[in-house]
């Protein structure tokens, strides 16, 4: 007789691989094997995971339709089952999976739309924190402003797309109205953040994503501004910082010791 560990090993392998036979010894009330009964578990696992992805990626579901979504999600969930019992975070790898999924290659913006949805979910469940106001930041010695390091809100996420992914996402959420979109139009970067109760999604100008990433890596404002200027010379630091403050992007600031000795 099989021990419990081997029993569960066979059971788990057969759940995720429909080509495998039903493990022996799983029987109906007559004591005889019943593949149909085992298939209930198989279906519960796969359908349940697909449903979780559908809840976390509603715009992708709407864009590709139910049939294609289920096919695509079904392949993802059996190849990448959850690693944690906390299903709130399941499907982090789905955008990359979509990017490499040949049947949707004709929708090159799709993975970027999925990245927005993923960022939205992460922002929704991120730690709560009260953002700094403009007045809080006015307290910083203005001579030292360039050397300040700004702590980002834990819910803040940035997405970048070569396509109008944000416009497409907005059209395909609950109240969105689909319309024709020129996918050769501008690239769209987005800032996704939950400063308080609601997740907010803002379009951000070119260079802003580089600024935010650089700040997030702990670099001072001046270094972050240079990173943004490397993306576009049309970058306006004060306008961008004002926009980020209004969005609730910052929760703290510090002057690193070495910064005080740097020449201004």
């Amino acid at each position: 007789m099989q021990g419990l560990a081997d029993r569960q090993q066979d059971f788990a392998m057969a759940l995720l691989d429909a080509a495998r036979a039903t493990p022996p010894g799983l029987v109906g009330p007559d004591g005889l094997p019943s593949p149909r009964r085992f298939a209930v578990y198989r279906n519960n696992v796969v359908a349940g995971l697909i449903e979780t992805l559908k809840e976390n990626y509603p715009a992708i579901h709407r864009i590709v339709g139910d049939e294609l979504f289920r096919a695509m999600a079904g392949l993802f969930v059996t190849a990448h089952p959850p690693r944690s019992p906390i299903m709130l975070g399941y499907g982090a790898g789905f955008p990359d999976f979509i990017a490499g999924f040949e049947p949707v290659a004709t929708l090159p913006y799709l993975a970027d739309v999925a990245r927005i949805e993923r960022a939205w979910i992460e922002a929704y469940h991120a730690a709560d924190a009260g953002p700094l106001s403009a007045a809080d930041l006015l307290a910083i010695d203005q001579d030292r402003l360039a050397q300040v390091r700004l702590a980002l809100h834990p819910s803040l996420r940035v997405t970048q797309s070569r396509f109008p992914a944000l416009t497409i996402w907005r059209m395909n959420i609950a109240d969105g109205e689909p319309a024709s979109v020129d996918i050769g139009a501008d690239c769209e970067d987005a800032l996704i953040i939950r400063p308080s109760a609601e997740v907010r999604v803002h379009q951000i100008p070119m260079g802003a994503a580089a600024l935010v990433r650089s700040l997030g890596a702990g670099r001072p404002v001046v270094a972050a501004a240079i990173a943004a200027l490397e993306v576009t010379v049309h970058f306006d630091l004060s306008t961008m910082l004002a926009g980020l403050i209004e969005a609730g992007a910052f929760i703290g600031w510090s002057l690193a010791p070495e910064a005080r000795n740097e020449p201004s």
Partner: protein
Amino acid sequence: MNIPPRAGVGLKPQHYREILETAPDIGFFEVHAENYMGAGGPPHRYLAAIRELYPLSLHGVGLSIGAAGPLDQDHLRRLKDLIARYQPGLFSEHLAWSSHGEAFLNDLLPVPYTKETLQRIASHIDHVQETLGRQMLLENPSTYVAFAESTYAEPEFIAEVQRRTGCGLLLDVSNVHVASTNQQWDPFAYIDAYPLGAVQEIHLAGFTPETDEKQRPLLIDTHNRTVDPLVWQLYAYVIGKLGPTSTLIEWDADLPSWGELHAEAMRAEAHMKSHATPQEVRLARTG
């Protein structure tokens, strides 16, 4: 806050606002622990506000107590933190497994009822109760298959786990009906063999009727509709033996309006008030 011997419902995000705006009369709410393991955000905000107003029970769906491997220490710690934060009146988990190696399979999978499983589950429950510093309730499963190697009947297996660990029990009456139909057991005999003295909570839910390859009934525990009349009958039998007992309506898919869900809970309360004896329920069943 203790869970009163009344009816409660599973708390769903779709009902958060209406509950807070209307403060309905209901005995308690129950949540799946794993849905409140995010770092922050609206789920915690709403749960904290609702917890101010109502008793709460915490129902785990991811601890994998029936797994052959060790318990997930990180998950146990998260449960302990959640219990400290929300002070639930009851904490329950399932007689099932869901994790294997690195993978979490997101379903409540069945175990063979053998001596080896019994020892494994008893030691896991000891571990949980020691770590959490409190008693847990163990819930009986809905099952679709039987294991050829099982040597215990399910109620005897549960009775032995309960005796060894001192855990409490969550009697899911719908699961008794689903498993009994699928395995062709007598659900009333199941209840008679079950250690009712340890029951601190009851679950009720809807199921979906299907058939297997030999056209035998196969009920699927879908939690997506009202409670079946046969389950209400079995519930009345249990309540006749136990008296009023905290009873939860589980409705997790194809969600109804708040009003419909509340009405289902009130049906359970009406049963608790009617005081039918087990003999009367059995007579009504055969009559």
